Structures are given as structure tokens and as C-alpha cells.
């Protein structure tokens, strides 16, 4: 395993220039791509998520680190196939039908990506049939739904019901979140997990995938 201390520090700081340069240095030194990803980028973003959940760092800092990681990813992604890099899992995410709020959903997307998941983001106001269609198409491991209004929360059980009718409910794990959503609600509608913020969304997703 290589030493990615400088890369890690740059991602923590959100210093894109240094982080990208350090990624290049690692690649030039023939470091294994999976190693750069897992022990350089993902390990750092795990720490970032953890520090965010604990209230040590704040949203702008987390966003900056995530953005930095995305820039580094651009360098290594083209080699994923050749080097046999594996994803932690596929996540399909969207804000449910009738709801236009995207801030929380975007934060979760970014942190999930930072944790090594492959994200497909359906955007906002996503009807149940669109979730179903995309689940059938890309066969994700996790479906993540966001709702910020009491009036749009019922779109969550409707989406779960649509997945059930299509015969794909048991092929995915379902996680939900958003300001009015609670753990109790997740249990009521038989979702598999509830997450209260972007940091905990990552740890819940890992638990669902049996990695931690």
C-alpha cells in the first residue's frame, strides 16, 4: 500500500490543485488505481463524513472536499476497467414526485460518491414509474429517496409499492431521508433504512451493503 498522506491532506483541505497533482504523482509512480481510490480518496472522504457527522467540520468544507475528490476521480476513472476497479455498489437516488428540493439529495449523492458508490441521480420530482424503469435498467443495489414536504412523503410508499408491483422491490435496498422523514416513518413504509444527514447516509448504505 502506498502512502497517500499528501493527497489525503489536500482532499481534507479541499485543495483541488494539490490533490489533482498528488493523484498524478501516484499514477506516475504506477500506484494501483484501486489503491489510490480506496486508500487515498475514499479513506479520506470517510474521515470527512465522520468529521461532518460529529460537527467538527461544516457543509461548505464537506462540499469542498467532495468536489476535490471528484476532480481527482476524473484522472483515475478512465483506468477503472483496465485495472478491474470495483465499485462499492450502485445507488439510484432522487427526490420523490411532487417535490423540488434538491440540496439534501445532492449532499447525500456527493458523499455516497466519495465513499466509492456509483451514483445515478434522477433529479427532482421523480415519479414512481421512473424509479421502477431505472431500477430495471441499471439494477442498483440501493434506491435512495428524498422528500422535504409532509405532502410529498406519501410518494415514498407509493414508489416502494410500484417497485413491488414490478417485482423488483426485493432486489434493492431502500433508504429514505429529508427534513420531515423519521426512522419511525421508514419502518412504517417498510423502507430498509433512514438517514438523518449525508454522513449517516453513507454509513447506513455501507451497512445495507454489508461493508463497514
Amino acid at each position, binding site marked *: 500500500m502506498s502512502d497517500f498522506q499528501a493527497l489525503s491532506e489536500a482532499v481534507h483541505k479541499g485543495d483541488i490543485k494539490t490533490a489533482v497533482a498528488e493523484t498524478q504523482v501516484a499514477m506516475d509512480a504506477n500506484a494501483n488505481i484501486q489503491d489510490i481510490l480506496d486508500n487515498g480518496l475514499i479513506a479520506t472522504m470517510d474521515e470527512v463524513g465522520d468529521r461532518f457527522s460529529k*460537527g467538527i467540520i*461544516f*457543509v*461548505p468544507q464537506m*462540499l469542498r472536499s467532495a468536489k476535490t475528490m471528484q476532480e481527482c476521480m476524473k484522472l483515475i476513472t478512465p483506468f477503472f476497467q483496465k485495472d478491474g476497479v470495483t465499485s462499492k455498489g450502485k445507488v439510484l437516488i432522487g427526490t420523490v414526485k*411532487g417535490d*423540488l*428540493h*434538491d*440540496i439534501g439529495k*445532492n*449532499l447525500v449523492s456527493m458523499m455516497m460518491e466519495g465513499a466509492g458508490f456509483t451514483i445515478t441521480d434522477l433529479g*427532482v*420530482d421523480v415519479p414512481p414509474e421512473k424509479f421502477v424503469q431505472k431500477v430495471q435498467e441499471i439494477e442498483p443495489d440501493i434506491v435512495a429517496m428524498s422528500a422535504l*414536504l*409532509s*405532502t*410529498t*412523503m*406519501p410518494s415514498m410508499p407509493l414508489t416502494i409499492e410500484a417497485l413491488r408491483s414490478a417485482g423488483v422491490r426485493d432486489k434493492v435496498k431502500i433508504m429514505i431521508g429529508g*427534513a*420531515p422523514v*423519521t426512522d419511525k*416513518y421508514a419502518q412504517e413504509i417498510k423502507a430498509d433504512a433512514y438517514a438523518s444527514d449525508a454522513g449517516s447516509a453513507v454509513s447506513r448504505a455501507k451497512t445495507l451493503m454489508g461493508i463497514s
Partner: protein
Amino acid sequence: MIIVGEKINTSRKSIREAVERQDADFIIKVAQEQAEAGANYIDVNAGTFVEQETERLCWLVETIQGALDLSLCLDSPDPNALSEAMKIHKGEPMINSISMETDRLGPLLPVVSSSPCQIIALCMGQAAMPTTVEDRVEVGSELINTLTSQGIPIENIHVDPLIQPISVDTNMGLAALGAIQKIMSGFPGVNTICGLSNISFGLPERHLINRNFLALAMSYGLSGAIMDPTDKRIMSTLLSTDMLLGRDEYCEKFIDGYQDGRVVG
């Protein structure tokens, strides 16, 4: 400034529990405290009850108005909950809120134009959240024109520019402030109102940010706020800002506030 007291919201644990056990005394006390601290309207929100929202919202209206002579701000994204609560509200309520979203505008328009009320018009478009000043002014103008064409007096409209977190995009403060200024100058007689806590999402020392945002928004023309009037520090910011903007003759309200202990440094 029109002050809407925000504390009776079932997303707060103490309120949710009080509503669950039908503790009228507790709810009345929270309403009374806010009115005494200067609230013009008492916001009531039972959104967390989802299917039972309408029933719980109506219980809040009956409970508070059964004991106190106060106007309420009926707070729900659900047109049905709002119209049911309006039916039992005594006097002129404030409606929080109407927006350009088709599911909300269609069912609410006949309700809000059939009996006198104050209306919060949220700058939420049909397809996306607004980001720029222009987005907000466009949706705000559309709402004002739609409401006034139904015969609603412009003075009864309170445009909410929709505050988004500065932590996610550092332009969000200016986007809201610019919209307040343009809406107030473009539509004489209209009001603007907003909640203060969204601006500070994701940041430390949120109360400090909220207070400074209130002062800035007031200087751009904001005429109302949805806030906690029992928080002495934010009320002190409000009173001192009103005075600094030349709206407090002989600095009377500020000095009165100081003398009876409401203004703190």
C-alpha cells in the same frame, strides 16, 4: 415589521408531544408567550403528522383561539389542510403558503380568494427551485399577478423569496436580498416575509448568522419575518435595525424595549 411566531411546529419535539397528548394548556402557553413578545401572528404547523395533519392543525386552531384572541398563520404545503383550518379560524388568518406549483396553486386559489386572508406567496416555481434574483422575481411577479387578478388586494400578499442555505452556495444570501429589493420596489404595497433559519443550514453559530441576515434583509426592504419572538437577541436586532432604518420615531420602541428588559446587548 410583521412578526410571525414560529414556535408551534410539530417538528419540534415538545410541541409534537403536546399535540399528541392534546395538552391544550401547553400549546396556549407557547402561543401567549409569543404574542406577548411581539408576534402579530402565531404560526401553527402540524406537518409531521402526515395523514392526521389536517385534524391536528384544526385542533391547534381551535385550542389557541378558544383561549386567546389571536390571529394565526396556518402553515402547510397541503391545500386541503389549509382550507379546512381556514374554515374554523376566527378573523383573518395568514396562509403559509401558496406557490406556483400546480398542485398547490390550483386548489388554493379559490380558497384564498373566497374569504379575507393574508397570503404568503412562496417563490417556488413549477419545475425547479429558484437560484438567482431573476428566478425569484419572475415567480414572485407571477404569483402577485395571479393573486391580484383574483381580486386579492396587493396589501394582503406577502412574498417569500425562498431562502436557501449560504453553506451550499455563497450567492444565496444576495439572491434573496436582491429579490426582496426588486419585489418591494416593483410592486408598491406588497409585503415580503421569510423564515430566517434556512440561510444558516450547515454552519456553526446559526443564531448569529440568522440575526445578521435579518438586519440585512430589513435594509433591503423585508417587511416581515417568521421567527422566534421570545428570543431576546433576535428581537433586539429587529428593534435596533428598525430604529437605524429611520422607522422608530424618537427611538421610542427601542428605548421602551431597553427599559422593560427586552433589548439586550
